[in-house]
């Protein structure tokens, strides 16, 4: 029997250990510049999208034909578009569209991909069927599949989310599946099986938590890809329909006035690059943070 003193001693040690672990985690986070820079830039973009529109004195659809294609200046910080609408205001509203479409696609395809991925590893026949479907969908180039789906569904923000979710889910399912396969082969899962644990219990309590880190990393990249794809679709006229503002359809309009209005190309373009770059940095950083093996490998090479 442990005495009171011994118990206290153990408690002290475990407290100290936890503290050290936290300090180590913090150090790893702090030395992860990519993640920090990416997260900071992205947080600023999200903040701008959320509260930015409250501070502009223009509406996203306020047209002033006299002021059309005004260069950036005191009155219109980033200039105006071909209808005299304030570009800064439209970029801020566009940020809302781009970021929410990206987030929705990342969340939906993660949820679907997670379910498909873990259940596929657990049931052999299901695995064969689901993975062949994923292989087939991955074989169709993503943007083409999205274009074809948008042609059938019709242009709208909701349909963009649906089309891109169909495009990205197979990728996530594959990533989750490969992580889940490793867990499934572990002895403790076999032991649970022998003890008579139900499939639901094993899957959701033991396999799913172990697939979350690669899923999170992949979801970050899908977020970035979805923002690019939404912009590309809108640019091609198959995404968010005008007059709603989106970075892609502002760029589409900019092509027609490229001789007169450089600001309509440069500013939405920069916004797009910043959001994608910050998300990519976050994804790389998260991978280093969550998967020490990869970090070790990259350090070596």
């Amino acid at each position, binding site marked *: 029997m442990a005495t009171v003193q011994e118990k206290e001693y153990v408690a002290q040690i475990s407290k100290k250990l936890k503290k050290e672990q936290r300090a180590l985690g913090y150090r790893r986070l702090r030395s992860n510049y990519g993640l920090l820079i990416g997260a900071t830039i992205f947080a600023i973009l999200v903040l701008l999208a959320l509260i930015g529109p409250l501070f502009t004195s223009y509406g996203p659809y306020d047209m002033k034909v006299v002021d059309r294609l005004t260069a950036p200046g005191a009155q219109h910080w980033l200039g105006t578009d071909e209808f005299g609408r304030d570009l800064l205001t439209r970029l801020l509203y566009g940020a809302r569209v781009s970021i929410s479409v990206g987030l929705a696609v990342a969340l939906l395809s993660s949820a679907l991909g997670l379910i498909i991925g873990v259940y596929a590893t657990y049931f052999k026949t299901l695995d064969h069927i689901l993975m062949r479907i994923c292989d087939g969908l991955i074989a169709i*180039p993503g943007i083409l599949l999205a274009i074809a789906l948008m042609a059938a569904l019709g242009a709208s923000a909701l349909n963009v989310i649906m089309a891109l979710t169909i495009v990205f889910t197979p990728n996530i399912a594959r990533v989750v599946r490969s992580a889940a396969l490793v867990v499934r082969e572990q002895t403790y899962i076999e032991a649970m099986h022998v003890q008579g644990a139900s499939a639901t219990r094993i899957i959701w309590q033991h396999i799913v938590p172990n697939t979350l880190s690669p899923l999170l990393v992949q979801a970050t990249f899908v977020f970035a890809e979805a923002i690019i794809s939404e912009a590309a679709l809108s640019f091609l006229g*198959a995404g968010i329909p005008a007059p709603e503002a989106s970075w892609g359809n502002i760029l589409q309009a900019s092509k027609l006035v490229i001789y007169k209005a450089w600001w309509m190309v440069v500013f939405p373009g920069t916004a797009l690059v910043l959001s994608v770059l910050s998300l990519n940095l976050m994804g790389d950083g998260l991978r280093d943070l969550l998967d020490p093996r990869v970090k070790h490998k990259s350090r070596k090479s």
Partner: protein
Amino acid sequence: MLAYIIKRILSLIPVLAVVTIAIFLIIHITPGNPAAAILGIEASQEEIEQLNQDLGLDRPLLEQYTSWVAHVFKGDLGDSIFMDQPVSEAIAEHISPTLSLAILAQVIAIILAIPFGMIAAYKRGSVADYSLMGLSLLGMAVPSFLLGLFLMLFVGVKLQWLPVAGYEPLSSGLWEHMKYLILPGISLGTIQAALITRMTRSSMLEVLNLNFIKTARSKGLHEMKVLFKHAFRSAFLPILTVIGQTFGTLVTGAVVVEAIFNIPGLGQLILNSIARRDFAVIQGVVLVVTLMYVTINLVIDLLYGAVDPRVRLERK
């Protein structure tokens, strides 16, 4: 080797089945009646029913699918309702600009990326390495259509060095042909270059740490000879794979970039068809590009299996 080839080709059957089903179903996910969507709101009930019959949309789904696939096997992709022309003919007319563009982009990417990757690996940890890696990170974050717009603005509009948009076929002279393709080629090739640079760097780094490089150096070989004759040759295979595997992405990317520079390729064909709801053309283009993509990957895999026995043994 033969077993590997057969296995690899057989593994394509389920993929192609899913691909064709997915592409076939596209027309059926249209909200409401596809024939009504194609004809627009002014169409009468009789016209819609007529088109339904012509397209075979009144038959059971499975029957429609099998007959579509049977026709595809014979090279018949259906007729474009809008252009009044077989889809395969329309695709044949539009495919060469797309391929020209994809190939040019690949060449640009290789010319830039391999020296960059080698420099980054050789001068690892230096300013050159960090700036090249930073550039490649940026290169991967700028979507090709956006880079195209930027180039159009700076090189075409501000500097006026190259035409902003348009296309001339190869028959009007090599320079005329290239003049219009350089900017689209760079926009498309940049992401590819970023990818290949990273691959070259990591592949070279792996090789540069090996003993035979140390041996080559210690016997007093010139650094250039060590780098090119010894290191690059062994590092080349993974680089080649990445080049091959991503060529399919370039063909798809070309479809998007064409739209910016008004190049009359497959991209323009599919985009024009969206507004016209010309589903036969949309399905045809997606199918043809996907088949190209799948075939390229197959060839790469087979070549890789031929060169590196580990690949074909591993997959048995």
